[in-house]
């Protein structure tokens, strides 16, 4: 059972990195720097609802490290993604375990806090607080994409193949 989970999580991390890469080929409608669809968050959200909080943190942290190692490097973009991931992890766990809200508001607010965390990291790194003006554009857009990702995850969970359900049932009993 433990090995099974480990292998599944490794697959999910690989999937998240692949989605992160594929996403760079998808042209966004608006040419806004820093705006992404966040397709790899589908995997994170799915892991949160399927395997629980610890696996969620594990997948997100390892994904950030590996993406930095593979493509973006440990520059300012790494600090920004670390800041964004940490704040979105915090707000997700808060909403998941304390507030117990549904996947929609969880996704929306964690997408928003991802942007806020990124901007905080940027503000610290370049020592300018005025970057937060950018949240005016980025905030509503990230909330929208967060909602879209929640819809996708719900569809995904609805159509899971049956061999995935076995593990979930065993986990619960």
């Amino acid at each position, binding site marked *: 059972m433990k090995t099974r989970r480990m292998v599944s999580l490794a697959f999910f991390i690989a999937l998240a990195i692949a989605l992160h890469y594929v996403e760079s080929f998808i042209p966004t409608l608006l040419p806004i720097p820093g705006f992404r669809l966040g397709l790899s968050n589908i995997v994170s959200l799915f892991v949160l609802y399927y395997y629980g909080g610890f696996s969620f943190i594990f997948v997100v942290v390892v994904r950030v490290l590996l993406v930095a190692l593979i493509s973006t490097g440990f520059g300012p973009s790494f600090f920004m993604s670390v800041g964004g991931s940490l704040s979105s992890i915090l707000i997700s766990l808060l909403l998941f375990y304390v507030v117990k809200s549904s996947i929609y508001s969880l996704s929306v607010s964690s997408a928003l806090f991802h942007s806020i965390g990124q901007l905080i990291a940027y503000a610290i790194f370049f020592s300018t607080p005025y970057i937060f003006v950018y949240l005016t554009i980025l905030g509503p857009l990230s909330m929208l994409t967060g909602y879209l990702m929640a819809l996708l995850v719900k569809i995904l969970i609805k159509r899971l193949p049956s061999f995935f*359900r076995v593990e979930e049932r065993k986990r619960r009993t």
Partner: protein
Amino acid sequence: MKNRKDELASDLVGDTRLTYKPVKDTIVIVLSGLLVVIITLLCVFTRPRTDNSHVEIKYDNVLLWDKNDSTKNTAIEFPDTGSKVLAFLKTDGPLYLGEGKNFEFYGDEMDVTIYSDHSIQITKEESPRNVCTNMGRVYNSYTPLICLPNRFQTMIVNSSFPEYDN
């Protein structure tokens, strides 16, 4: 022995965390939206003011300083009232260019006007597309007036918050 329907009902598909909860979710989403509005308003009301600012003019990417100023001060202060025209001729101008150097630009003269309300404008220049003249008056410190054919760059610089390089 459970049938297939019960199995489905017992796993994640029927989980209440996947259905929209009208009260809780609306509250969370509205709070998130409010956060965006609050941060936006904070940014708008604490934005850098141009009260404590000066003008810097670059030619060929080199900052120019006042001819009469031995301290090589590159900060050009705004006038207290009305407006002030800095007129650059081909061989002469109000700012120092370097020994034996001449300004090279289209036409005969280039005028930079600075106003007492802390705004700048290029009032006279000649260039193929007149980009910087068409930009009109600029009031903020993040829009430089750049005239590439004439190799001039004019911008407002804020003295009240630290500059940074990136």
